[in-house]
């Protein structure tokens, strides 16, 4: 690579990029600082990026909040069960679809069917009615089965499988391995980056979704964490149909800014924990999965 010919321009670019990176973290840092601050300081807006009157009271209240932990548990359960289902389904679908129509007649029909399901939907109400009719409301299955087929991930892994040398599969077949053995013993082990990518996408997806929990779970104790937080924090904002500043102040105090900041922070922890792994794989995974036919 040719070196830039002016240090000044370099400097400006570096400073600008660092500033943008800081800006994109600033809102989160502000919330983090508030969550560790004293109540009065937080409410009067004295907190910027460093806690004022440092204390752990908000986190102590989160720990004693039973509803928070029940929802945390629902989310963990959902991620484990939903992630496992996504993993198996994605592998099982991606492998046959990575075969050409010549070796697998019907492959293209399946492909069109899957793409059609991805692009067209009956809309929210029929979807809700279907799950209601299946009697799945208020069960964990409502959170993991409708999202069981992550079509985008299937396509990504399928494209990765297509790039695996044919000789590898031929050799396995000559040694007597059928499709199942070939898939499990050859394809899965050599696809670690792509599998890590799709798995992390599905974990993040399950952890982050709140809307299905909100409409499909009628009892509080079945809410996943994001739904719980949505109901407690965000809905206070939406019921603020008043422009009276005093009234708004009263409402936002009621929602206890401090406690909410702490809850938001705690719910970020799992994502932050898997983020290093995400980082490592997703760039290569996406680029590899996007190769053209």
């Amino acid at each position, binding site marked *: *690579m040719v070196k830039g*010919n002016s240090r000044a321009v370099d400097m400006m670019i*570096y400073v600008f*990029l660092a500033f*943008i*990176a800081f800006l994109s*973290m*600033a*809102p*989160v840092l*502000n*919330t983090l600082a508030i969550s560790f601050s004293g109540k009065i300081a937080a*409410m*009067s*807006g004295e907190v*910027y990026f460093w806690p004022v009157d440092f204390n752990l009271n908000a986190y102590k209240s989160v720990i004693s909040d039973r509803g928070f932990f029940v929802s945390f548990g629902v989310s963990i359960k959902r991620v484990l069960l939903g992630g496992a289902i996504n993993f198996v389904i994605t592998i099982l*679908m991606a492998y046959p679809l990575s075969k050409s129509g010549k*070796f697998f*007649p019907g492959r293209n029909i*399946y492909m069109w*069917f899957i793409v059609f*399901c991805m*692009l*067209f*939907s*009956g809309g929210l*109400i*029929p979807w*809700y*009615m*279907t*799950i*209601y009719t299946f009697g799945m409301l208020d069960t964990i299955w409502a959170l993991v*089965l409708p999202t*069981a*087929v992550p079509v985008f991930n299937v*396509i990504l892994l*399928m494209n990765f499988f297509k790039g695996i040398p044919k000789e590898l599969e031929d050799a396995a*077949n000559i040694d007597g391995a059928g*499709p199942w053995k070939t898939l499990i013993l050859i394809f899965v082990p050599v696809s670690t980056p792509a599998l890590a990518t799709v798995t992390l996408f599905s974990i993040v997806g399950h952890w*982050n*979704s*709140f*809307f299905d929990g909100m409409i499909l779970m009628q009892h509080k104790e079945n809410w996943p964490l*994001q739904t719980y*937080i949505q109901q407690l*924090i*965000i809905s206070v*904002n939406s019921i603020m*149909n008043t*422009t009276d*500043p005093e009234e*708004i*102040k009263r409402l*936002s105090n009621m929602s206890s800014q401090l406690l909410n900041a702490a809850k938001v922070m705690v719910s970020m922890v799992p*994502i932050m924990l898997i983020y290093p792994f995400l980082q490592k794989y997703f*760039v290569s995974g*996406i*680029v590899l999965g996007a190769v*053209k036919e």
Partner: protein
Amino acid sequence: MRSRSFVWNYHVMLLPGILLLIAFSVIPMFGIAIAFQDFQPTLGIFHSEWVGWDNFSYMFSLPDSKLIFVNTLTIALMKIAAGLIVPFVFALLLHEVYHVKFKRTIQTIVYLPHFMSWVILSGVLVNLLSLDGLINQMIKWFGGDPIMFLQSNSWFRAIIVSSDVWKEFGFSTIIYIAALTSINTNLYEAAAIDGATRFQRLRHITVPSLMTTIILLATLALGNVLNAGFEQILNLYNPIVYQTGDIIDTYVYRAGLLEIQYGLATAVGLLKSLVSFLLITISYVLAARFANYRIF
């Protein structure tokens, strides 16, 4: 012979996924019938009264219809434009960085918001934009009057678009960076030997090599002109800003699940599904024809 048993196994592998798609994608498609019924949950889809196009004509008679359509289109188009330009510029700047560690640190930070849910980011935004929040503290510090951003129709769309940029711009640069790394470095060296300035290299090598990518992304974005961001808006809006922020998806949610007008909500949703499907299909056909782009 062996290949025939292989094919049979392929069908078996696909079976669970196909069954799940039938249960949760195809069966709901038949629920479209609700759009043509005066649907009563107690009677179900088979016994509710058929009303023909009544739900659709009612929909077009509502003054809200035009509003939500305009809001959806405006917000979505602003997001598409910002979502194409900001990552493009950011990728160009990042490409000028030779310090690998610095580059990677910046990338790590700006990708992060993409992995946070709208619930979490809205929690953060509500905090930030509140009357005592950081932004209003800064406005006061500069001598201005505090603004109730999330209760203001003149600010709401700007907040929606800019917070969407905040969440996605970093992650969206990945695709540009992938295109940039495939540029042959010989081009830069040859240009440098010929005496091209840094800006000339940017203008004549880097930018043209990204043109295919940006045209492709713009084409694929066509499928999103009716997607203004349901989860984001649901978490940030309130009745005061319905006028500028209520979109098709939030309307369907309220009309259908909160006000129990199933027929109307299904009709609105169906219309959106159909138009979106048409637009996505067109965009894929265009992308395949002109950029030779096929993902499946």
